[in-house]
Each structure stands twice: as structure tokens, then as C-alpha cells.
């Protein structure tokens, strides 16, 4: 596969390490009353769609950027990629 790196253009996917669903960026608030349940959902549950999927790829043999790649899991067609760090901050305090 070829990953359209926002800075570097098309790069072979072998340069990347795959993590999974982009929802892994949405780490829950550890101080919430429901923190344990929230974290269980966050860590274990996935939409796992057959179709368009936003997912995390790390450019390990490249510029070490974490990318959010939008890809169709039925066809492997890639619809876009963006730098994770450019997205609004979403981590807990």
C-alpha cells in the first residue's frame, strides 16, 4: 500500500507501523466518575467498520509522524491522511 503522507507524499506502507482506530487519540478523562468504564470502552471496543475507517499509522522509518489515515477496509482505497498533531488537542489534563 501507499500512504499519502501530508508532508512527504506517497510513501510505501512498509515504512509505517500500524496502530488502529483513530479513536485511540480520544483518551478519556481519568478523573471522571466513570473513568474505569470509559477507559475499558476506549481500550477494548472498536467500531471496526467494513468501509471507511480512520486509523493511526506511525511513520516509523520516516519522519516519525503519527498520521490519521482514512481508508476503506473493504477496498483498501485511501481517501486521505492528516498529521495527528495538527488535530485539536484532545488528551485529558
Amino acid at each position, binding site marked *: *500500500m*501507499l500512504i499519502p503522507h501530508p508532508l512527504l507524499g*506517497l510513501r*510505501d506502507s512498509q515504512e509505517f*507501523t500500524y*496502530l488502529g482506530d483513530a479513536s*485511540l*487519540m480520544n*483518551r478519556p478523562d*481519568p*478523573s471522571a466518575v466513570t*473513568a*474505569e468504564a470509559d*477507559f*475499558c470502552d*476506549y*481500550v477494548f471496543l472498536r467500531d471496526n467498520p467494513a468501509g471507511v475507517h480512520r486509523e*493511526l499509522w*506511525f511513520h*516509523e522509518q520516516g519522519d*516519525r*509522524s*503519527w498520521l490519521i489515515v482514512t481508508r476503506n477496509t473493504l*477496498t*483498501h*482505497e*485511501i481517501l486521505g491522511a492528516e*498529521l*495527528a*498533531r495538527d488535530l485539536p*488537542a*484532545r*488528551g*485529558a*489534563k
Partner: protein
Amino acid sequence: MTRLSGGLIDRKAPLGFTFNGKTYQGFQGDTLASALLANGVQLVGRSFKYHRPRGIFTAGSEEPNALVTLRSGARAEPNTRATVAELFAGLEARSQNHIGPLEHDLMAVNDLLSPFFAAGFYYKTFMWPRAFWERLYEPAIRRAAGLGALSTLPDPDTYDKGFLHCDLLVIGGGATGLSAALTAARAGAEVILADEDFRFGGRLLAESDLLDGAPATDWVDRTCAELAAMPNVRLMPRTTVFGTYDHGIFGAVQRVADHLPDPTGQVRQTLWRITAKRSVLAAGAIERHIPFADNDRPGIMLAGAMRAYANRWAAAPVRKSGDPVAIFTNGDDGHRTALDLLAKGVPVLGVIDTRPAVAAFGAYQVFSGGTVTGTKGRHGLTAIEITRNGQSSWHNVGALGVAGGWNPNVHLASHHRGRPVWDNDLLAFVPGADGPKGMFPAGAARGKGGTHAALTDGMEMAIAALSDIGVSASPIALPDTPDTPAKQSAYWYVPAKKRAWVDFQNDVTVKDITLSHTENMRSVEHLKRWTTLGMATDQGKTSNISALAVMADLTGATIPETGTTIFRPPYTGVSLSVLGGGDTGHHFRPRRLTPTHHWATAQGAEFTEVGQWMRASYFPRAGETHWRQSVDREVLTVRHDVGLCDVTTLGKIDVQGADAAEFLNRIYSNMMGTLKVGMVRYGLMLREDGHLYDDGTCARLGVDHFVVTTTTANAGAVYRNMEFAHQCLWPELDVQLISTTDAWAQIAVAGPKSRALLQRIVDGFDLSNEAFPFMACAELTICGGLRARLFRISFSGELAYEIAVPARYGHALMERLMHVGADLGATPYGTEALAVLRIEKGHAAGAELNGQTTALMLGLGKMVSPKKDSIGAVMSRREGLAQERRRLVGLMPVEPQSQIPAGSHLFTKGTTQNMETDQGWVTSSCYSPYLNSYIALGFLEDGDTRMGEVITAANPLEGQSFEAKVVPTHFVDPEGGRLRD
């Protein structure tokens, strides 16, 4: 000899070769198949199941029958298609899958027993008695199955791989491909033209069509010469594009030296990964046959293949020159073969055409409305039965060509599982619209098979493909050639009482398909799996469509309603050598060497693989005959004097930035932000699911500068996870991360005399306990100005330091420490002694941090700080983790000289041993020369409250059982006084 005149062979270059030990002669330009045919050899192999005599059926890579073992010894290559094996001087080939001579195969008894071997028979029998399957039935089946044999020797040849990038990949170098490549090349695009044949031209070489009134080879040669001269074109003959992968990536194998008598010293084959912005699939078409009774005898071949042998290779498909040839066809195409054979002087009995009232195209007889209903000839065709209007007659022939129409070669277009679609005019499946993105099927591969149509379509598809990527290409002048439309009828098979083969190699007949239908195995996939149709080495290239037609007939549905089958990579067989190409021995994967690797080698060290690293495991001395002697000595040196160990392999991550301390607080489960500058702290990292992930030390070199160490195994992953936390979770923090693992040679200097030793190399640095206490760190210079980092940390439990210098000085530093420490007993130690030292001290390592354990299990539950958030903190509090009762304990065997092997399971003494009573396992085990006893660490149920209890450590796998006393994990200096002195 049945060699004809003309052809594209070099008669000035005769080549001797052997088949089954007999010597023959062919010419440069021959394939093994054409050379055999030219020598009158029709019988070349045996079928898979019934061991029926088989000959050459095709003239290309779709060949189901003519499989031979090429070469001998370690270079023996089974299952090579004679039809694509380029002839070379001294070529050695043997037929396969028979016992005794090819002509008198003892296994041919299977053919007599064939009624018992109908489709699916083996699912219905061989079940009694139960044990006989492995003992009797299966070994017999296995021996009979298989085609050729491996030599069982390592492949002696070398293989290469590489990567190519282009605008347009043209797959197939026939009329379509050459036209496409020329169009694109003239437009300035980067073009790769690949063809599996050793000569470009495709069917242009096999047909007698003229281009611009001249032999087609004139235009082919001219075009190839122009392409070869262009810098933007890469011509790749002998290159099979075998797979279509995602996003325009193709796998291709180039046969670099397969056609050479001796490939020694050369790369035999190269695996190319081609990334193409667009591709033109110009793979042509594959002719299909028409099943009829006894249609599998040597001498029966595809009519198009016959033309190829006659025109390109000047070989008549008969055993004896002058034997007549017949053609069986359901369309016009078969007649072309008759004409070409006649033109070459081969007598033609006639053309049996299933269509009524068909006129001859030349001077031969037409058996209109006729079918072939029987054949004779044990090792080669001698006669055929022609049936017309219910009347049958036998005719002597030396060969029969069968023309059932052409199937576009959709193989590569279906690798993305897009289904071909039925074209009722062509009576064939053509590539569908949901084929691989960016691929443009062209020419015969999409049903435009006439020479003129192919040339035009190649050009037009190249223009379209380039237009897609913004490159403007212009039409090129194409050679003039007449395109007479060839008519064809939907005639699929001749009903027969006898067996009519559909899939030749796997011996699947019309009867088998009928039986499959009877047994309700009617979906195409069930049919294939029940009968093994299409599962042979040709992936059903010549059989699938015929089988669909038979099944459609049985169900009363149309062919497209019955289904279609798609093909899977690879297009043709690809050697595992080239796929796994390159280095298979010591260089199979790269090795990481420590800065003292060469020094340790010179000391005679034994090495061990630790991930990709090579580490010295111990340093044997003269007179030591067992590894334990060396390791015990090294351990005791550290306990009594001073030892030196290269610990460079531990991961080192530089963490800087205004928020570095906050960041590390979130990465480590314990508090790290409060660490004072100039100090080191032990830290635990958890996975977000609360389990233990990694441990190591964190040194604070400045207010906003830390160095994190990781275990050797997890160095890469921890760095990646920290980047994740930095970029994806907390991008607002000002943190910069850089791995510096390789930059520093780090040497552990451990033992009571370590301070004395280091004092001799530091440049006036105060190493006293007051100035540089336990867990201190500093940047300093040593040996007259060499910058270094010093950490007072201890894995062994002794007074110890780790000193880091720029990696290029690691070797010299080790030498210097050994030299100046000689009187102190300075001794190198390896990973074995390192392991003993840490087990004696109860430190966790890989066996304890195996991803299934928790801080609580290590007795480090308090290191998960409740005062702050950190990765894994929340989930470490879940019920299953919080209530975990297994604890790391020390184990002393009651019999000190017996080793409890790691991997033994722990039980309360006297209990029955099973999964329910299992209470833990031994993680690490070693001999402690300090305690003169074997010792071990293990996780034990309620281990922390069972000190002093004698338990059982069981190793039923190796028939062992031990009694062991539960003790604290610190076998040495439990108070920890030594490392603080």
C-alpha cells in the same frame, strides 16, 4: 524430426539437451516443448490422479500437462512447464509423477481403478479402523500424490530483489502491449514493459499475420529497438508480473539466468516490486478446449498452440513427419490453424467444425456439424472418431488441435477480487469495472483480440491511462493489418459416455462435474473444492470456463448465472527462493553489534542473539571447559572485585522540553517529575490496560532534560509509544524526543572495587559516597578529556556504576578499564552472569515482564501512583488486576544442586497436579555460585505470605519434580547496604 521450415529459431545455434536421459537437439529460440515436438516427442508426463499419459497441450504458461523437472542435483526444479522453459545447451529435463519408465508407469493402475476415485471419494471411505488413516491410507495417498520432487538440498543460487517506480506499467509485450508502451514512451512517460516470454511480440510471433505487408517480427523488432533506445523506458523480457497489489503495486519476477547453462556467479532471478501510477493489462487471451471422450491423449493440443509451434518454432505437433493433423473447432479460429499448417507443408485431415454448413477457408476438408467422439493411441494420438449426423467414422491422425474460443486473460485484473463479467458476443468473461484501480485492460485481455484491434486498443488505453495522471499522449501511426472478424459458436463440450477431461492436470472430467451436481455441490466454489477442479498448477486457466459451461448445462442456468471464478496471485508459480530472495543465512536479518563487539570477539567471547543485537554471553578463559565455570567466575568477580559488562543495548531516549517532567509523570506509573537534577530514578511503565510494560531508569541531566532507559527488547516500542503520547494524546506539551541508543557506549562497572577502578579514569571527579551517592548521575570527562555520562545504578546489588562514552570510544574504554583495573581483578562479564546477578538480587527481567504480569505481581504495586494520572493507572485498578494474588518469590531447591528449570509449574506440596491446582510458574532459574545453590524466581499464588513453605515445582514435560522453599526474591544483600556504600 518433425521440424518445419522457417520459424524464429536460430538454426546456426544448435543446442543439445536431454529428456529422460535421452539426447536431443534443438535450436536457440526453442522452448523445451517446441524442441521436444520438433523431435517427435509427444509423451512428456503423467496426470496427477490417474497417471494418464500426457503431452504438450499449450504453447504458454497456462500449460497443465507438460510439467518436467528441470536440471538436477540441488538445482533440480520440479513442475517446470516445458512450454516456457527456454532451451539452453545441456538442458536436462525429466518427466515426473511415475514409477518406472514414463512409458510404463506402474501407477497407471490408478486409471483402471478410476471408477473408485470419482470426485469426493476419499471423504466417504478410509475411516475404519480409526488409526489406519495415519498408518496406512494417508501415507499411501501422500506417496502417490504430489507432482515433482524437491531435491531436499539448499538452493545454491543467488536471488535479488529491488524496487521500480514508473508512470505506466505495461503488462504483456504483444501487439497491444507494444503499441501501448510505444504510445506512452513517445509521450515522455516513464514506462516499464514486462513480458513473461524471452522475446517480445506475443501472438504476433505465433500468427502468420502481416503488418504493413511484412512479417510481424519486422514491426516488433523496430518497435523494441525504438523503445530500448529511450531513457524513459525499461524493457523487461523474461519478466512475469505475478500479482496486482494495492495502490498500483505489482510483484514481478525477472528470470535473469534461468536460460543460461550455468547460472553460477549470477543472480538467478530478481523479485521486483513495481509501483506504477497506472497500468495497462495487455496479457492477451488464453484458448479454451472442448471436452470430448478421451480428449487427453498426447498429441491433442490447443489449436492456437499448434499455430505457435508451426509458425514460431517450426515444429509439427506429430510424432512422425507427414502424419496428418486434424482440427476440432466451434468457430473460425480453428480454421486458421489448418491454413497455417498447410502453409508449412503439414498434411491436414480436415477441420471438424461443430457448426453446420461451414465452408473451408482453404484447401482442406471441413466436417461441418461434426464432433470428435473418441480417440485412440496409448502414448500418443493415432486416430480420432468423427461423428456427424449420428454417423461415426475413425480417422488416422498424428495430432488434433482443439479450438474452443479464447478467454481474455483476466487473471491480474481479478486479484482485487473484482469479478469478470460475461460478454455474450464474445462468449467469454471480460474484466469488470471493479478491477484494480488504475489498471486499464487492453487488447485481447478485454476481448479485442484481432491484431488491428489489439494494436489500436493498446494505443488508446495507454492514452487514457496517461490522461488519468495528467500526461498528454498522442496517437501513434500503427501498422496496417487486416482484421477479419472471427465467428464463434457457443459449443462447450461433447456429451460422452466415456471420460471427457475438463481439468487435465487434476483429472477432473465431465462425469465428475455431473456427480458434483448430483451431490448438491453446485456452487462454483463447492464444485471446485469437491472435484479439485482449477486447483492444479495452472489455476484452471484452461478449464474453469468449460467447467462452468458443463455445470450451467446441468442446472439449466446460464454461464454467468452459474457463477464465475476469480484468480489469485500469483499469475504463474513463483519460486520461494526469489520471493524470500537475498540472504537466507547469517544475513537473513541485520545484526546490531555493540561498541565492544570486536573487543569481545578478540577475547574469545561466546555470543547470543538478543532481538537483533548480538551480545557476549560469557568470556571463557583458558582451561575452562564448561560454560558454567566461566559464568560462575564472572559472577563471583562482580560480588568480590569488579566486573565490566557492555549494556549499550538498553534503549536510551533523550527527553527535553519545558514540559518534559510533566510528560514523564504521565508516561511512568511512579512519580518522575520530582526527580532532582543529577539524580536517577527507577521507573515502571504500564500499558494503558494496566499491565506492566517496561521498566528502566530515568536520569535528570537538567531541569528540562532527561534520559530515559528502556529494556533492550522494548526500546523501539517504548520510543514509538512515547511519540504517540506526545503527538496524539498531549500535543500541547513542550516535549522533544530523540533516541540515542546507539550514540553512547554504556559499560556497567560493578562490584565492591568499582569505585576504585573508576577513580583511575575520571578527570578529577569526586566519586565519594557523599559527593556521588547511590542513584546519582553526572556529565563529566574521563581519560584526559573524553566527555562521558556516569550513573550510579546497580542491577547486581553491588556498588556499581554505568559509564557512557561516545560509541566510538567504547572499545578503547573497555580496554582501558581492563588495563588499569588489572590489579583490582577487573573482568568482563556477559549476559549469562548478568542474568545470575539479577536473579540473585531479585530484579525483574524479560521473563517476569512478559506482558502478562502486573506491578502488584512484582511486589511493586506502590509504584503505581494514585496521586497522578499516568498511562495504565486507571485500568490497573480493575477487579481482576487489583485482586491478583500471584507474587514474585524466590525459590531455593531443597536439594541445592538440582536446577528447577524455568517453565516449571508450582504446586502446593502433595496436591494432585492439574490446571486447576496450578499455582504459578518458575520464570527464571540459575546456579548461584555465591550461594552455592541453584536458585529461581517464580510467580506463586499468595507467594508473599508463604515464605518458608516447601512447595513442589513440577516439570512433567521432562519428567521432573522438585521441592523448593519459598524465600524472598533478594537472595543477596536483602538490606541493600552494598549498593549504597
